[in-house]
């Protein structure tokens, strides 16, 4: 398990994230998002979290981003929307940049006291499974509840023929 690969992949993900965020064109942004996720998966493999990497690719890149693509398809990516995005981005980037730098600074300059080394053995899927269905059983139930809430939310918001009810 080579650390170098992990760090390299992480950095790669970082760069692709930066690009994804600054693209005026939605489809480009999405593609760079996929690149980021894949880089992340490589990093996970490097860190020995094979199960997590596979999940990331299957569910995150596979399902969630695909959802994005469906929605982006419905969006008319017209040249003037691109120019409008570029104009809006140009006008508004200094303050958020300062803010994100502020958020990043403590981590970069903070001398964390994580001393010593640990035998970072790769964590196999069995252990994760034993964990999930052992002590974390309740967490999983809650996660399912979360998904149910999302489901109901989407169904409710997504309904098209809603007649606006008069407020009580």
């Amino acid at each position: 398990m080579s650390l170098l690969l992990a760090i390299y992949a992480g950095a790669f993900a970082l760069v692709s994230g930066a690009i994804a965020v600054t693209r005026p064109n939605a489809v480009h942004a999405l593609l760079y998002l996929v690149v980021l996720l894949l880089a992340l998966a490589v990093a996970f493999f490097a860190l020995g979290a094979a199960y997590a990497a596979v999940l990331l690719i299957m569910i995150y890149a596979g399902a969630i981003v695909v959802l994005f693509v469906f929605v982006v398809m419905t969006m008319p990516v017209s040249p003037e929307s691109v120019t409008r995005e570029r104009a809006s981005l140009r006008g508004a980037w200094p303050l958020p940049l300062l803010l994100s730098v502020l958020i990043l600074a403590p981590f970069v300059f903070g001398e964390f006291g994580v001393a010593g080394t640990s035998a970072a053995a790769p964590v196999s899927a069995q252990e994760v499974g034993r964990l999930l269905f052992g002590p974390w059983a309740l967490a999983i139930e809650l996660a399912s509840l979360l998904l149910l809430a999302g489901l109901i939310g989407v169904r409710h918001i997504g309904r098209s023929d809603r007649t606006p009810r008069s407020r009580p």
Partner: protein
Amino acid sequence: MASLLPFVPVPALIGFLVLSLMPVALSRTVVIALGVGAAVLPAILFAPVAVSCLEGGCVAGAAVPILSIDVGVFVAQIAMSLDPLSMVTGGTVALVAALVLIYSGAYMASEPLPDLRRYFALMNLFLAGMLAVVFAADVILLFLGWETIGLCSFMLIAFYTKLPKAVSAGRKALITTRVADAFLLAGLMMLFLSAGTTRLDGMLAAVPAMDPWRLAPIAGLIALGALGKSAQFPFHTWLPSAMAGPTPVSALLHSATMVAAGVILLARLAPLFAAAPEISAMVAMLGILTAAAGALIALIQTDVKKLLAFSTMSQIGFMVLALGLGAPAVALAHFAIHAAFKSLLFLSAGVMSHASGGSTAIEALRGARYRQPWAFWSFAIGAASLAGLPVITAGWYSKEAVLAAVWSSGPCGVPLWLLAATAAMLTGAYAFRVVFVAGSQSADLAAPPWGGAAVMVPLGVLTFVAVVGGLSVGALIGFTGGAPEHIPLLPTLLGAAAPILGVVLARQLVRHPRELERVAHRLRHVRAFRIEILYYYYFVRRFRTIATVLGNADGTEAAAQAAALRRESIDAPGLAADDPLGRAFGGEAAQPDFIARATDGQTPVVRLVSGDPVGRILIVVARVFVGSFVARFSPDQIDRGWMGFAGSFGHAWEQARRLQTGRVRDHSLWIALGCAALLLYAWGTSWR
């Protein structure tokens, strides 16, 4: 037997209560019996206490507590003291009072019943008050007794209510003594505040700890109070005019006991005055001044009671002198002996004047020797004792003790002694002047049958004491803690010669009355001696003029007019309309508007009645105060301040609203900012 002490004044008090408050009509004999009995009982009750004291039962400072009042913050202890001083003075007072009351049983017999009953009630109340003063071991009982005897002296002086002179004399006595009592009260209060306890011994114990600048005023005030009661120089005018009361009253109150209350108090507080030398010096000066002046004025008196009054004042001057020089025991001995022979003089003079038609002029007594031999001889012995004829009379021993004390009292003792000796000589002179006049021949020799046991017994006892009492003077001084002075032979001899010289002078004066008249006439014109008139011009008259001006008697019709206005409830606009002074301010327009504004049209704060300039000034000041000062407070500025503060929140909210743009980006911006701040803070504090 000591616990019997608090019950000594009780019979006199009961006598007073029964005689004055009992709704039942008592017959004459019952009244006299009750009055005299209630006065004699204390003396009888006192005997066992005195005996136990003589056997060493009482040491200086011992006290019998009666009751204690817990005022939450400190405990006031009312107690009677069982020390030699109260024994000596208590004994004298009880004995003299008993004898005088027995005498007055006969002397006042001819009074109408209600007056008689009032007389005996008041005499008993006086006795109770005097005993309270004498025995008091704490300030409260002392001042209670002090005021009671002051009140009784006023009521008894003004006994003959029909005589305007008696009533005015009573008022004069009361006012003067009350002024002095005010000084005394102030002094005692300051003493209490700095000593913290109401017990006399506690106060005396606290005296050394007090710093002198605080002690001097206290001692001064108390001395003034005591001297006022004892009719010393600045306050002496009321004593001669107090002779307007009946003779037994003058005998008991204004010769033996009441006037000596001041001396007793000064003796009891002797350590206090020892700690304030300049005050004692002042007291001594006043004493000697009064002694000399009293003797001189007594010399030129024509009325025997006035003479005896001035003589009392002079003798008490001697006592105060002794006290001032720091010899309380000697003063007390002189007080005891003086009480005896002075009451003897008064009682016998009463008998003689009663027999000669009631007038107390010295001329009227001429020939009393043959009409009333008993009374005359007792008067003569009394006069001898007063003059202090050597060896044979008690007066000599006590006066000698006083003179000895004066002689050996420090540097200026000798000149003081000389002055005291001349005063003694004058005393001898005026004492024997009356004796010679009374002893000379007179035309009407018819002696109306009068007297009887009730008169003779007291006179007899007092004569016995006046003569034999001298032997006990040395013992008395030792008993009350003073050391008898041993002085060289010469001053004693001179002291003895002085009264004899006085007698010779008296004989001269009686034989040549005209020189006496000239001397008296010249003396009367000396401004210093016309103190009586001095008082009248400087104080009384001025006070009366101010009172009339303030009272503004002529303002009454203005009051009537104001009342009329009010009745028709015409709402006269404030000050000007209905009040003379208002008009004086220049009529209608002059009234300052802020007064009207202040009282915002309501009826003026106080409808001004009658022309009282001082009162009105206060009203105007009050209304100006209300108008300008208080009005500024009425809308409660602080309240408006708070409401303003609350109002400001409204504007703050306006600004705050602009912050809420509702756009998702801005909201998340604020959230991110908060998160960044938290991270920075965390980094700043814990991560290092």
